[in-house]
């Protein structure tokens, strides 16, 4: 239980500032305060159209949380000298929690900046931004959850605002319909998840992740069936949150109906949030089950899910005519890649940290490139150009820089060696090969070769097709959307030379869980 220590590296003699231990969850608190501040402002000046104010407050809030998170990551909070646990171990702050909080807050900041244009003239801006902040708060809590109880509560905290955000366009039937679908499947999977938790509790007698692990360490003889079903149900809950097979079918509906910035938020941040709890719960609590007698081989289950998810996501994406739906299926495919981070784990395997670290690094880069791609779609929706590949024809003649950014996102998502997405996929596949799962890597490589087909269709439509006369509606340049898209593109490009930093941080954070 070390205190938060901040080392000033500039001074020759390290300068130690010792902060109280609770400040380790400062990013979470900042997000909560931002959400409350938004509600307060709206309560004090009701009815005032404060879209700009709210956007600025939320952007500052998420950027401050990001800055604190990065500062903690750099200074080694929760990493040097072990993780920091709070509230009787219900909360843990370590490298993995901080790494994922950085993803959530970056995506939230991008989405907030982009939403400013998207929401122009809308009435309930305050509720939109506060819901967004509370959803981010829920995700940040998921990242620091160290007990199945906090996992469940924070997962619901992240989900409930998300349902409302998907249905935010109240007068749009698609938005309301997709919100309802999202909610119903969410409710079902929450029930399954809670049931799974209760079964695991029945076997181990604890909800704390470390004590669950200790309970499983003592052996599951006699309870193997109950434990196995419990673990499987919990895996199902994660499959829902990460939009993996078999609980993936809400994703295309929700992403298509939701306001596009919310689609960006859900497909990047919410997916990563699902993975952070899955990574933590399975690597901390369920590792003993892999070599218990009788063994409960959940890694094999994830391997099967990873293969099915990669294949289904990529093949379904290839058949879409609607760009947003294509991206929705592609994000299912990427969930399949990240699942390799769980599937390639072995009991006591020397490559566990590498595999999971590579999956984390992929989620970070995916956070930028996928958010950027959905925000580009938000821009197209903002102009009212249309939704299909044909409608996108010739957009580069009107918006060259945004189209260039979109080309960057598409090629990076496809894993072309020019941008960040290449290294993260390569690191993932190479570590899977070292761990002995060459067939997972092979499926991944083949499906990502296939993905170039449908990603390049977007680029072809934007750059090579002739405009078909529907682009005259483009009469304005939405500054916020442009800024967010360009920033995401710059990050995607810079993460090629900067990839070592992301990968080393992620591998260190993941290895700490297996130590």
């Amino acid at each position: 239980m070390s205190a938060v220590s901040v080392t000033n590296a500039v001074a020759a003699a390290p300068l130690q500032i010792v902060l109280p231990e609770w400040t380790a969850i400062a990013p979470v608190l900042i997000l909560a305060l931002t959400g409350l501040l938004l509600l307060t402002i709206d309560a004090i000046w009701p009815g005032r159209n404060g879209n700009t104010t709210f956007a600025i407050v939320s952007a500052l809030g998420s950027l401050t949380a990001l800055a604190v998170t990065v500062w903690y990551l750099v200074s080694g909070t929760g990493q040097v000298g072990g993780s920091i646990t709070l509230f009787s171990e219900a909360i843990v702050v370590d490298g993995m929690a901080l790494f994922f909080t950085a993803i959530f807050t970056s995506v939230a900041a991008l989405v907030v900046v982009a939403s400013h244009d998207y929401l122009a003239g809308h009435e309930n801006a305050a509720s939109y931004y506060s819901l967004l902040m509370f959803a981010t708060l829920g995700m940040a809590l998921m990242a620091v959850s160290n007990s199945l109880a906090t996992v469940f509560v924070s997962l619901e905290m992240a989900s409930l605002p998300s349902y409302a955000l998907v249905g935010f366009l109240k007068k749009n039937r698609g938005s309301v319909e997709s919100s309802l679908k999202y909610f119903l499947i969410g409710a079902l999977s929450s029930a399954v998840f809670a049931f799974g938790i209760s079964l695991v509790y029945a076997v181990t007698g604890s909800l704390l992740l470390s004590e669950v692990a200790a309970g499983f360490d003592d052996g599951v003889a006699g309870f193997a069936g109950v434990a196995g079903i419990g673990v499987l149900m919990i895996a199902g809950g994660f499959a829902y949150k990460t939009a993996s097979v078999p609980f993936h079918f809400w994703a295309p509906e929700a992403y298509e109906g939701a306001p596009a910035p919310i689609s960006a938020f859900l497909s990047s941040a919410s997916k990563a949030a699902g993975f952070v709890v899955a990574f933590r719960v399975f690597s901390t609590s369920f590792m003993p089950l892999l070599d218990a007698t009788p063994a409960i081989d959940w890694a094999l289950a994830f391997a099967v899910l990873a293969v099915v998810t990669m294949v289904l996501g990529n093949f379904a994406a290839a058949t879409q005519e609607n760009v947003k739906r294509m991206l929705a299926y592609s994000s299912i495919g990427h969930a399949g890649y990240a699942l390799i981070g769980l599937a390639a784990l072995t009991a006591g395997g020397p490559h566990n940290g590498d595999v999971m670290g590579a999956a984390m690094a992929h989620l970070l880069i995916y956070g930028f490139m996928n958010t950027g791609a959905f925000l580009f779609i938000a821009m197209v929706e903002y102009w009212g150009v249309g939704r299909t590949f044909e409608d996108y024809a010739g957009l580069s003649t009107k918006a060259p820089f945004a189209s260039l950014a979109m080309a960057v996102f598409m090629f990076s998502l496809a894993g072309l060696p020019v941008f960040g997405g290449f290294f993260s996929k390569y690191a993932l596949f190479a570590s899977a090969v070292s761990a002995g799962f060459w067939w997972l890597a092979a499926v991944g490589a083949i499906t990502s070769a296939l993905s170039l087909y449908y990603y390049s269709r977007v680029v072809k439509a934007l750059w090579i097709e002739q405009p078909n006369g529907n682009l005259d509606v483009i009469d304005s340049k939405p500054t916020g959307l442009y800024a967010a898209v360009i920033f995401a593109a710059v990050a995607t490009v810079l993460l090629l030379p900067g990839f070592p930093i992301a990968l080393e941080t992620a591998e260190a954070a993941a290895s700490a869980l297996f130590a």
Partner: protein
Amino acid sequence: MIIEALIAFTFAAALFTFAVPNKYAGKTAFALSLVPIAGSLYMWSAFESGGNALTGGEIAFETVIPWLEIAGIQVQWFVGVDGISLPLVVLTTFLATLSIVSAWTPIDDRQSQFYGLMLFMEANLLGVFTALDFFLWFIFWEAVLVPMYFLIGVWGGPRRKYAAIKFFVYTNIASLAMFIGFMALVFGLGPSTFGLPEITQALANDQLGAWFGLAPETLKLIAFLALFVGFAVKVPVVPVHTWLPDAHVEAPTPVSIMLAGVLLKMGTYALLRFNFTMLPDQASLLAIPIAIVAVVSVIYGAMLALAQTDLKRIVAYSSVSSMGYVILGLIAFTEFGVGGATFQMVAHGLISGLMFMSVGVIYNATHTRIVSDMSGMADRMPVAVGILVAGAFAYMGLPLMAGFAGEFFIFAGSFDSTLLPYAPIFTALAMFGIVIVAGYLLLAMQRTLFGPFRLETDYEITPAPMHEIAPMAVLLLAIIALGVAPEVFLEMIFDAVGPILDNGGGL
């Protein structure tokens, strides 16, 4: 440092040009592209050859910076040149500038994006020829495809979409095969870095172990085949050449110049660096099939050229033929064969650049490339036609021009090859290709350039403007200079080629 500076400057120039208004983009790109020329000329003047970069020779302008480590193997920023890559660097900077100038007339839409992409491609080409770390090289290699895809797809002819997609799909699948083949080799070898010199020397020292149950020899053979297929598409050789005529015919002239002049050389350069330097035993094992591929490319490419009616298609197919000579020179595995092949890469880059430029100049004036549409062009465009005729003779191998030197060395080398069985027969067959080249070039020229003027246009055909003639004249001078004094490149090439032959199983 100079290499990083050159690449970084060219990238920055590309970004800057992208933001310049269309009206000034062409002149801006031209001015900016002079800097890489100056840089490459400085490198040339300061270069002292010291063997082959991969086999332990001295690497000029070397920089090694660790980048990241994946699965225990270090990826580095590792660049440098030797006698094989330096001529290609010089060729790249020159052709890029000349093709930018030749774009002033034909490119009349979205100029800033066009010139930005041209410079972006130049930066990546410089990276391809200087990178000495596999990963870094692969990134540049793939990054060349992206601007090419746009350059054909956006500014191309009527069937540009088909041509761009075909180019992109062909070359990407080839890259994937090559990448997987090489990675199998690397994982079997388990080197500490992806540095090409380290991998080459480890392979030469028989450090390759088994990997996933594959014996070292099998692994080497698989890697050789995967690499050969991957690079053969780029070269291209028969039967994987079909993307080339489509891409060339649809691409605008300046893009064709870069495609024929530099991009095809990426394939032969990579074949030399990877297949023939790293895996010479496998090359000698497969000598006969490779020589057959080379000779078939020479003859069949030339016959295809003979059958075309479009001037650009004629030049495009004759590139397939010329690249066949380069493969023949490489597989001969003699000093003159490999050295001549490397020299021919540069020579063919200049000559095919000149040919595409000439066809482009005629097309700018006539808006047709069909042989039977025109006649007697020499009457109206004497200077341009004069340079075109000179270029055609260079293509046919007229002595004292660069093409003669390259082809002569290749034939001399391949005739004496000890590695290639039946070498004199293969050489004789390939030499027959020259006769066909002369046949189709003379035939096409006689029909289009000479005789009474005939072309139905509703405007007057006037001589080509200065900025179209100047790059052609520069190229012609360079071709003659290299033909008269091939030793300016040959010495450093032979220096770098020698160690490959000592290293290999050939001699």
